[in-house]
């Protein structure tokens, strides 16, 4: 099976352990998003996978090919791993035209000219940039550069792809378009992908599966809905969407103090509501209004669509859904 397997991976910078005991599977044709705050070790992980960095310990393989095995002292050089890699900073070579950038891997493989041109035309069509063949990268926008970088790694016919925050420098509207393009490419080319980001919106847009990472460890892994609805920790709950994290005994004195995650949209204001609080603050957020409600000693955040309550007013509400962590 063409799967990426990582076992027991440890990566250190000098004395600092960045990745510790990490296990990871990327299934055939899967687009796995690794989501985590800046500095949590996402890039380090990808460097380890691609061989740009030598892990201290562990095992990495793709299908039959073993990339790294600390026990058997195997460490395949980066050139041989055939991993499509896209960096945040585009990494296009400024001294080469778009065409020369893209066909670089083909030339390395000594593929004949006519075939190169066919591949080039195909890929340029796929990334919708056929007219930019002879342009130098400096004259391209960020989005265009990143599409070229993706194309360049695709022509190599990689076993799988790593994208390290590829759209972080791109403005929000274009970002959505490019996410769709990446997804389309992933499906068409049937390539497993690891897509790294710190932006949950990107993750939800594109992921087959999401992996939440913090401080070099995997905190939770699951389908996007699972991650959102059933966060397994306060960290995940806070990192994904907005949420109220309160102790159970705030609502029910008998229970002991496990913690609850309540999404703002799961609290409903209702005249016959079970709980009574009062409005502390109101913030207009465009499509909805965010209300801060004082209840016992906690402040709960609620998203509502209408704005008929005033600050200081007493209101009643129900909790439709909550999740114990």
């Amino acid at each position, binding site marked *: 099976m063409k799967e990426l397997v990582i076992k027991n991976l440890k990566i250190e910078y000098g004395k600092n352990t960045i990745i510790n005991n990490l296990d990871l599977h990327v299934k055939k044709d899967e687009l796995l998003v690794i989501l985590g705050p800046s500095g949590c070790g996402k890039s380090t992980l990808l460097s380890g996978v*691609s*061989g*740009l960095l030598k892990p201290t310990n562990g095992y990495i393989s793709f299908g039959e090919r073993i990339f790294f095995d600390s026990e058997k002292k195997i460490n395949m*050089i*980066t*050139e*041989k*791993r*055939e*991993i*499509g*890699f896209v*960096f945040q*900073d585009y*990494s296009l*070579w*400024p*001294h080469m035209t778009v065409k020369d950038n893209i066909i*670089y*891997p083909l030339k*390395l*493989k000594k593929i004949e000219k006519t075939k190169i041109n066919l591949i080039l035309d195909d890929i340029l069509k796929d990334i919708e940039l056929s007219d930019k063949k002879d342009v*130098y990268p*400096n004259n391209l926008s960020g989005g265009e550069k990143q599409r070229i*970088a993706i194309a*360049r*790694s695709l022509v*190599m016919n990689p076993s799988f792809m790593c994208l390290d925050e590829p759209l972080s420098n791109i403005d929000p509207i274009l970002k959505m378009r490019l996410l769709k393009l990446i997804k389309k490419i992933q499906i068409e080319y049937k390539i497993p992908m690891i897509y790294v980001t710190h932006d949950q919106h990107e993750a939800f847009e594109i992921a087959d599966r999401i992996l939440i990472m913090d401080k070099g460890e995997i905190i939770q892994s699951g389908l996007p809905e699972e991650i959102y609805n059933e966060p397994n920790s306060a960290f995940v709950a806070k990192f994904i969407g907005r949420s109220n994290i309160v102790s159970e005994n705030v609502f029910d004195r008998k229970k002991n103090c496990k913690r609850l995650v309540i999404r703002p949209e799961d609290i409903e204001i209702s005249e016959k509501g079970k709980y009574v609080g009062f409005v502390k603050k109101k913030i207009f957020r465009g499509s909805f209004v965010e209300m801060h409600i004082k209840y016992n000693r906690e402040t709960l955040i609620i998203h509502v669509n209408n704005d008929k309550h005033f600050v200081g007013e007493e209101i009643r509400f129900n909790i439709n859904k909550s999740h114990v962590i």
Partner: protein
Amino acid sequence: MKNNLKNNTVKFLNKNSRKLSYSNSSLIFLFTALVVLIIIVFPLVYIIKISVIKDGRIFFDGYIEVFKDVKTYRALKNTVILVLGVLAMSVPIGTILAFIRNKTDYKYNKAIDYFVFINFCIPSYVLSVAWIECISRGGFLHRILKMILPTIKYDISPYSLTAAIIVLSIHLYPLVYFAVGSGLKQISDILEKTSFLLGGSKRKTILGITIPLVYPTLISIGFLVFTRTIANFGVVSNLVLPIGTEVLTTRIFQAISELNLTVVAVLSILLMVISLAVFKISKRVKYKEIENTNNTIYYYALGKYRIGVNIMLSIFFSIALFIPLVTLLISSFLKRWGLPIEMEYLTLNNYKYILFESEVTKRAFANSIFFGIFSATSAVIITLFILYFKKHNNRLKDKLLFSISNLPLSMPNIVLAIGATFAWINPPFKLYGTKWIIIITYIALFIPIVLKHASGLSSNISLSIDDSAKTLGVPLIKRIFVLYMPQIFSGLLSGWIICFLISLREIPISLLLYRKGTETIGVMLFMIQSNSYGLETTSTLAVIVIIFSVIGNVLVKKIVKGNSVNERISD
């Protein structure tokens, strides 16, 4: 209270009314423009005039004579060989060293920096002296060979075009090293890593990505090496002229001694045109911006090549640096050049003689220091005005002034000196033979150098600083000296020091313009040997000049840290 304030403000504004400040501005501009015209443009115009006007009539006989003369073509051919040779040697050497220093995990990379830096501080003429001391008959190489093989027949001549190529390459490779090094540092590691990821080997990546990324730098630095080489006078007159081979600069020098002024003028124009053309073409080279977005550099592992690199660098620096330095040092302590190196023949007298006894060398030191301080300071002030107007007014005339002031940078020193001779030899402006002709020619030479050092800083300054000062009624002179100058001060200062250093080693200008009483150190370096002293005194002077030069350049390095001067000046 409020009334009081109002009164004061009105008074203040009156005192510095716009009209007054405007006329002040015109006055200073006029003064600056006049200085630039007189010291830069006037001599150049004179060269052209001499080349086409004789007895009040226009004639082109000079051009015909020059272009019919086979000597011209011989000199041109030799110049081309010289330039190509120096390019072929200095560019690869500088590039390879810069690569090892900046792109590999070589352990002693700091040492490379220091060695290249000292190489950079040694004046080219001094290197050529060391070369003669090493290679000539009875020189150090001869003696060593004789020790090993007592019967050897030694017939290597230190004088040849090849010798000049080697010496100039050793002198100029540091320019390549500095420029390529700073280019290599701009390369973001991901550009190379991407190549590995796409299947490129180290060799392919170095040759296909890393080095091509600095091609633009290589081309523009190649042009600089080109202009420096054709402008060189000291080395070629020392190593090539003695065997009768001529290049353009020495051809001009010969024509001067033949007193054929028209030919001198025409040859100067020829040299100037070539220089200027190369200079202009070099400005045309388009840079594809490389920017290091993530500030990390990829270092290639040397691995098994480490030993080879060590050996190669040891050999190179021995030849380029240590042998010349040791040669000069030993010679400077010898009682008489050519004596065996034994205790009884060593002495401190040469230093004593040069620093304390000889009236001429003492006077030369005093002259060089005075000319240097005076010219560098004047150049700084003129430059300050030029830059201020360019920055804040940027009218056509400001830009024009700026461009004209940059002209001497692309002109060989010998041409500047010839222009000065022509312009200032006749009354009423008869400066020829006085110290002032050297001083104003130095000023012309220095203005573009200071400009180069300070204009980077100037372009970073916000225009609103001056505008807000204007609205507060601060007068022009204050705005220039109190607000503007401090912001570009480090540039002006490093430019000043560089100019001062140049005046301590400069040869062609002072050699052509000096008279008894206005000798400079450069003149002494060049002449002292023929003044019945041997190479030992030249070596002593050379050691002193090198020490000055190293100290000065270290100072400049300290000051320049932070602001970027991307082109260094050498002579």
